Every structure is written in C-alpha cells, then in structure tokens.
C-alpha cells in the first residue's frame, strides 16, 4: 500500500495482519487499532517513511481476555529527511493472554532531522498473563531524536489504596484504574476522528475490562 503525496490517511484496524506501507512526501498516516481477538503467527507491519516530511502515527490498544496471543512486529524505516514516527501502544492482559511485541525503528544515514518515539506499556491483570516487549532503535545519523520506552506492571497498588481511602470499593477502584490505563494515552491522539472512533470502540468493550 502506498499513501500518495500530500495526503492524510486514517485507518482503524480490528486485527493485525502482514502489511507494507510506503508513505510519500508530506503525507500523514494515522493508524489506530483496538485488538481483542488474538492471532497465532507473528504479524509484520512494515512502514517506510520515504518522502520528505512524511509522518506515521500509530495507536494500538490490546485487550487480552482469555488465552489470546498477540505476536507482532512493527518495523519503521525513516528514509527521507524531516520524517516523524510516533507509536503508542497499551495492553491489558487477563487470564492466560500474552502480548509479544517488537518495535523496530531504523533511521537511515541520510534521513536528516527525524523524530521518532515508540512506547508500549502493558498491564498484567492476572497471574498467568505475560508480556514480551522488544523495542529496537538503530540510528545511523546524529541529526535524529529517538526515544522509546516500555513497561510491564500490574494495577498500581498505591493508586488503588488511594481510591479506596476515598470511599471507593476495591473492585471499583480497580475498574477505574484499568479504564484510566487506556485513557492515559488517548489525549496524545491529535486527530479527533481517530480519537473519537478509538474511544467509542474501547467504551463498547469496557464491560470486559472495567
């Protein structure tokens, strides 16, 4: 798939399959996804920021309820100058669900003045859930700003205790914190349509996780 010049393209995914996307000059792709149904074999999404000023924004929310697995690799190559990639992922994992995410970002030598940020935060909501996160940076120029972060944890016990001390039951405190975990990154979605669509989707699944 190729996003043509000077276009802004938006896509909302329900699952992740193999795909290659070439983003041309001054083009902006916003990719959102709420994933509930897992998959077995690793899905590879390859993004090539080929044109000057190309931008890729990615917002994935993963909800593992039973025994789903979510193995995938998002690979982003910054080939042209002034390209930007901004990836935000959050996972809540119940029961025996598992996320296995690789984020591979490469900034080529000639891609001047690029900016890349990748984050994936996972919350383990049961004993047998697990998360494997591998964010990779390969930076071949010093004119790039690159950053990534990952975390894996359970619901913050201090935050839960704080809410309980304000008269909220433990069950409701947990619900609020799980809900808040996804919502923390919603404000980072600058595209109102994508944000609204993802919010609606997450709301429709809220009975599962909150």
């Amino acid at each position, binding site marked *: 798939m190729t996003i043509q010049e000077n276009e802004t393209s938006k896509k909302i995914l329900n699952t992740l399959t193999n795909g290659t996307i070439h983003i041309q000059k001054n083009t902006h792709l916003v990719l959102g996804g709420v994933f509930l149904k897992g998959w077995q074999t690793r899905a590879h999404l390859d993004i090539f920021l080929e044109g000057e000023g190309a931008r890729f924004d990615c917002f994935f929310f993963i909800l593992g309820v039973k025994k789903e697995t979510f193995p995938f690799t998002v690979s982003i190559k910054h080939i042209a100058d002034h390209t930007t990639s901004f990836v935000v992922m959050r996972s809540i994992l119940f029961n025996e669900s598992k996320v296995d995410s690789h984020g591979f970002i490469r900034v080529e030598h000639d891609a001047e003045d690029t900016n890349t940020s990748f984050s994936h935060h996972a919350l383990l909501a049961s004993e047998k859930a697990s998360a*494997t*996160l591998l964010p990779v*940076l390969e930076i071949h120029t010093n004119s790039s700003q690159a950053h990534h*972060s990952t975390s894996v944890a359970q619901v913050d016990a201090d935050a839960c205790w704080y809410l309980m001390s304000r008269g909220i039951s433990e069950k409701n405190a947990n619900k609020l914190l799980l809900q808040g975990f996804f919502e923390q990154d919603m404000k980072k979605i600058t595209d109102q349509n994508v944000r609204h669509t993802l919010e609606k989707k997450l709301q429709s699944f809220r009975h599962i996780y909150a």
Partner: protein
Amino acid sequence: MKSNFKTKTKSVYEAQKGLNQHVIQEISAQKNEPQWMRDMRLRAYQIFLQKSLPAWGGDLSTLDFDSLCYYVRPQEKRETAWEDVPQEIKETFEKLGVPEAERKFLAGTGAQFESEVIYHSLMDSLQKKGVIFMATDDALREHPDLFKKYFCTVVPSQDNKFAALNTAVWSGGTFLYVPKGVHIDLPLQAYFRINRQNMGQFERTLIIAEEGSSVHYVEGCTAPTYTTDSLHSAVVEIIVKDHARVQYTTVQNWSKNVYNLVTKRAVAYKNAEMMWLDCNLGSKLTMKYPAIYLRGEGARGEIQSLALAGNGQHQDAGAKIIHCAPHTRSTIMARSISKDGGRSSYRGLVRIQRGAVGSASRVVCNALLLDDDSISDTYPLSDVKEQTAAVAHEASVARIRDDQLFYLTSRGLSEDEAASAIVNGFASPIVKKLPMEYALELNRLLAMEVSAQ
C-alpha cells in the same frame, strides 16, 4: 596512548598456531593438570566445533581462529615478589602504573602477561583471614575441591561458542575466595596485557563470596596495536552467597585490533548484591553482556556500563538480568558514545520468571552520537511472566545540542572544551562509581578522544 607500546620478550613456551586436540592436550600437559580437567577441555573443544558463531551482534567474519596462538608462557614460574618478575615484563607493567597502584590503594594485585599470570600478591592481613586470591591455574592445584565445586557451574561449556572455546584453552585469570563475613575494604585488581601479535588470551576468573562477605574486584586490559587481529575471550563466573556483596569493575582499553568476546555471569542468592561496572573503551569488536541471575529472595543486581566507540570500533555491549526469586530488584544503566564512524549497541534482557513475586527492574539507556557517520543501536528485551512484577525501560539517542555548545562557549570555553565537558557530564553517572584513580584516568581519556575529533 600510554598503553600502546610493545615489549620485546622471549617466551618460555609457545603453542603452535591454530587449534586442535593436540594443542589442548599440550596446554593441559604444560600445566600438569589432573585428568578430569584435561577431559573437560577436550569435551569443550568438541562443543566449540559444533556450535556456530552468533548470527547477531558484531561482524565476526574476519576472525580467523587458525591464525591465533592459543597459549604462550612468558616465564617459568609465578612470582609473589615484584623484584623477581623478569625485567622486560616488569617494565611493561611499570609503564602501565600497576605496581604503583598496588602500593597506593589496593589490597592485592594480579598481572597477566599473554597466557599466564606472572605476578600475584595479597595483603598479609587478608591471607590470615582466609582470603584466597591467586591465579586460577594455581587454585586448581592448591584448592582442588573448592575449584571443582564451582568451576563451570555458572557458565557451562554449552552456553555459547566462546564459553566452550575458553573452557577448552583457558589459562590464567583470577581465583578469588572470600570467606564468610570477611569484608575486603580496598579493591583487588587484576591487570591483563596482550603483548604478542595474533595472540589469543583466554583467562578464566572465578569469584566466590561466602555468606555476609564483600569484595570489589577491578580489572584492566590493554594491548599494543598491530596490523593483525588478536582475540580476548574470557569467562568470568561469580557466586554471591546470602547477604554478600560483589562489585566487579572493568576498564577495558584493548587496542583496536582485539576481538573482545567475553562471557560474564554472576549468581546472587538471598539478599545478596551483585554489581557489574563495565567500561568499554578499546577493542575492534566487543561482544559482552554481563549477566546476573537473582536466585535468592531479596537479591539485588545492578549493571552500569559505559561504551565509547570510535573509528573502526563496534561496542556491542549490554546486560542480562534474570529474576528467579521473589522480591528481587535490578537496575541497568547503560551509556554509550559513538564518534568517527564508530558503532555502539546496547543489547539487553530483563526476564521476570513466574513466581518472582514483587520483583522490579528499571533499565535506562542513553546514547550520544557525536557525528553523522556514527551509529547507535538499542535492543532491550523485557520478558515478564509474573503479574506482581514491575519492569520499566527507556532509551534515548541524541547528539550534543547547539544550545548546549552555545551556552558553554558563551561562558568562555572553546568548542572543544565545551564538547568535552558535555561528554564528561554525560558519562559522569557511570564514571563517578569508579575508584577515584580510574575515574580521573577515564575522564582524561574521554576528553582526549573528544578533542581529537
């Protein structure tokens, strides 16, 4: 550079070039080893032949195992008095400041030249407390039970190709045993020197810190520059028993024709603390990922590393922490500087096994790219199978910003001085953990490297 000089020496024995069963048997015979060790070496050699080179990491395609000399004995016997060391070898270490350092601030010193430890000493007071600090070969002879109990238990031959190679041809290294409750206040130091060209140095270090003891061990490595490549492939095994603490500090400054392919691993038991402080400045290619297995409840692990990759260098360094027990804690801080087309890679693993309740780990990697030809990579893997654990990782890659330079130059610093100050500031969280003499030397070296740019 202070360490880039060659010494003309006449070896007592040199094995033929290349590696085969005969060379291994000859090394073992030269050392007059027991049969079990000879058999272990030969088994490890078979594993070495079977295992392939790692498909990841640095470029090993030009590493020629057949061109290396696997064993060189520089002198007849090991000395414990500095005066007895042969003149030319003594001069080598004196130029490097080793005996001076011992007099000033060390509890004990070892010096390895080519394949053999040529000098070893330990403070009398520590000997009386039962501390054993000697060449690993001597420990095999003098403390066979202790040696056999721990040797190859932390890094088995099957672990990787280079661990197998080391087990097959190991020679020298340090054996350090700290008895229960003994605290060694001053650092112990070992200095490793490759002098000959096409040399393979395969020291084996084994450290056992008994319950409630503590020790800080420092190693330094240098070699002169040749046009052909040498290989340094060490194995370090550390056992940190309940409530003990071990700090292992490395200042690696091999010349730029040395492959530095090292396996370092520690096991920490209940409430024990293990710290690797790893500074990689030299070598052509370093592939080294110090590891800690946190096996006892409440054990703590810390890995701090600094890498400097210049022209023709690839520092593929990292850290591995495996949380196997409840309430274990770990911290990894890695900083790297790449310049003149050099490449720095951080390759790390934090694994929290199921059952390691309440464990936590934090990883921070920062890379500084000083020019447009250099490369920085980060490969941090977090694998969490315990719900109650908390793991956080963050990494950033940046350059010296114009506003930083502008601020410092507006205060009267030249651009070189400003860049040097920024690099020193970037490295300081790691450097300040070094003993003061090393920290000063490292700061000088960083300043020199940056201004040379």
